[in-house]
């Protein structure tokens, strides 16, 4: 009989949580953009990936982990802001496939340019905490100092975003300009500036996800590191409802746990297939997402 804490179930749940929070973060950053601009940002994985490469370029100048992280966030904010100003701004009010196509194009360009500059061989990032799992009574436990750091950071980011939206004046303005841009503009909210800010914020959330993901042993930083995670993040956001930040995060975490169970009890290849099946079924049952309140929108 296994001790409870190192049993298969607990191991899977905790391992799933570790992956799930990253899906939740990606889903959250997708929802932030979707709610404010009505664009599903297919480059939501690639923009932070690029910022991470830029930020961790400081490693070769003998900077430590934390200065690099700060540099990553600055790079992400710049990339997010510039993208909104130069690219996305031309797409507001266009048919809905235009932004999809442009963002897919941006995704390809970013991945290709990153691979051209930094090559596509994985680059290992330093991690501030040990990646070695703890042992409990001679058995491996599901968590390591790094995964605790990963989960904690993700929770802090999610809380910070929630607090920003709920308790600050800026958050109120962001929500207002997303919900009723015309009215907000009349009331003196600078909607254009806030949209830029929304993209900056979303890319910053994304870059933290990318840093956490690519400090892992297995993946390392590659130009395509976020592809799979973006797919799961989108699935989570679609299940939870693109309108609902809380729903997206919850769905992301649950999806991570489900995936871990599928990996453990079925096999690695079945994970994305099961996730796709869950997506199809949930979209058929609740097209606007499990966690959104139904709004009247015929057709």
């Amino acid at each position, binding site marked *: 009989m296994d001790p409870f804490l190192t049993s298969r179930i607990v191991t899977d749940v905790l391992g799933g949580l570790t992956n799930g929070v990253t899906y939740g973060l990606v889903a959250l950053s997708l929802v932030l953009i979707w709610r404010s601009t009505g664009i599903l940002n297919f480059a939501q994985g690639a923009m932070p990936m690029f910022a991470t490469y830029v930020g961790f370029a400081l490693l070769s100048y003998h900077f430590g982990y934390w200065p690099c992280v700060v540099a990553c966030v600055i790079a992400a904010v710049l990339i997010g802001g510039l993208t909104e100003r130069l690219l996305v701004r031309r797409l507001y009010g266009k048919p809905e496939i235009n932004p999809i196509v442009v963002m897919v194009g941006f995704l390809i360009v970013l991945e290709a340019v990153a691979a051209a500059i930094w090559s596509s061989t994985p680059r290992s990032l330093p991690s501030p905490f040990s990646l070695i799992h703890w042992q409990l009574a001679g058995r491996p436990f599901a968590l390591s100092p790094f995964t605790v750091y990963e989960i904690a950071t993700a929770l802090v980011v999610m809380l910070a975003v929630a607090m920003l939206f709920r308790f600050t004046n800026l958050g109120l303005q962001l929500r207002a300009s997303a919900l009723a841009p015309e009215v907000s503009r009349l009331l003196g909210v600078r909607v254009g500036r806030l949209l830029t800010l929304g993209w900056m914020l979303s890319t910053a959330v994304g870059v933290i996800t990318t840093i956490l993901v690519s400090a892992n042993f297995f993946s390392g930083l590659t130009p395509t590191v976020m592809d799979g995670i973006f*797919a799961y993040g989108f699935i989570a956001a679609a299940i939870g409802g693109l309108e609902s930040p809380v729903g997206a995060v919850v769905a992301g975490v649950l999806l991570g746990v489900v995936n871990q169970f599928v990996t453990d009890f079925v096999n690695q290849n079945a994970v994305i297939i099961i996730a796709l099946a869950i997506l199809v079924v949930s979209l058929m049952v609740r097209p606007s997402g499990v966690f959104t309140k139904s709004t009247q929108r015929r057709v």
Partner: protein
Amino acid sequence: MKLGTVRPIPIAVGLAFVATVIALVSTSTSREGVALCVALDVAIACGAVLSLPRFKSSHPVVFRAALTLLGLDVALFVTYYFPSSTNFNLSTGAAMSIVLLGLSFLTGASGQISLGNGAFMGVGAFVMAIWANHHTTTPIVITLLIAVACGALVGLLLGLPATRLRGPYLAGMTLAFAVAFTFILATFSSWTGGDSGLQLPTAVTAPRWLDGFFAAGTPPLKTTTLYLTDFTILVAGVAFFFMANLFASRTGRSMRLIRDNDVAAELVGVSLPRTRVVAFIVSSAYAALGGALLTLIDNSVSPPTYSFALSVTILSLIVIGGIGTISGALIGGVIYAFSTNVISWITTQTGLNPQGNLASQLNGIIFGGLLIVTMIFAPFGISGAVRHLWHRLRARSPG
């Protein structure tokens, strides 16, 4: 009869007679002569039909048939003189243009977009290979139809939720399918041959009654390529003809109405869910057909071909060609046929190290960049830009 009216039929008959005589006199072997004069006569007949006044509006189906026949006639004729490598490129381009046509229809007719057409191609390609390996006696055409049917079935499965979805959900869902597809292949590796993929049991060769054209005196490699190229172009022609009619049909019109205004479409009695599913099924069936043809051309199929990157390539090609148009699919197919050559030409011209990072990523940078630029500055691609220029010229010139 008024003076100056063109009388196409008598002129055509005269031209055809002259062409036949020239062909028979100038060519060395009788077989080549027959081929040449058939090609010329068909071209002249089609040209005559196409130039009949007001024919396009009075007999639209015959008009499209004549246009298709003319295109096929010219294409099949020129492939006879092309080197094998060009023909190989042309055949992949023709197969790809079928896929592009499906996506163009989906977007142009219903306003939806799919990022998973590469995976639907893969469905067709693998069904083709699996069936050909298990039932070696089935004629190719039947196997192709089976592959198309399987593509349509998977399209139905994924399309059902799409009936209730708006906007980017379908794009995201098809993206998830495209990402999942290689894993699906790996899961059923006993059928799909795992990492190495599948080989067709026998290469496709020309049927006996066509031996005269495809086997006479030419080396076998060339004849196989030529036959496959002509076969693919023929299938593509049929696919284009069907699609042109579908675009103009009642179904096509209701789809365009949905794209432009879905509320109005519902009010006039168009069933949204059914029309959307039909559009999605047609697009996945076309993708499967293209994939199956690609398996025939390559004589094998391997999983890495059908990764997410292929879906992105498909999207780029149709956007650059002109999304929502039929000619856009043709342009995209031609671009696909020669893109590898053009990119390697750029690499040699700019003196890049062909094994370097930049050279290996040139494809992505160019296609991704073109995708953005096209969508922002010319949303209907080359086809739309040409049409725009044409209208401006017509408006400027008197008459």
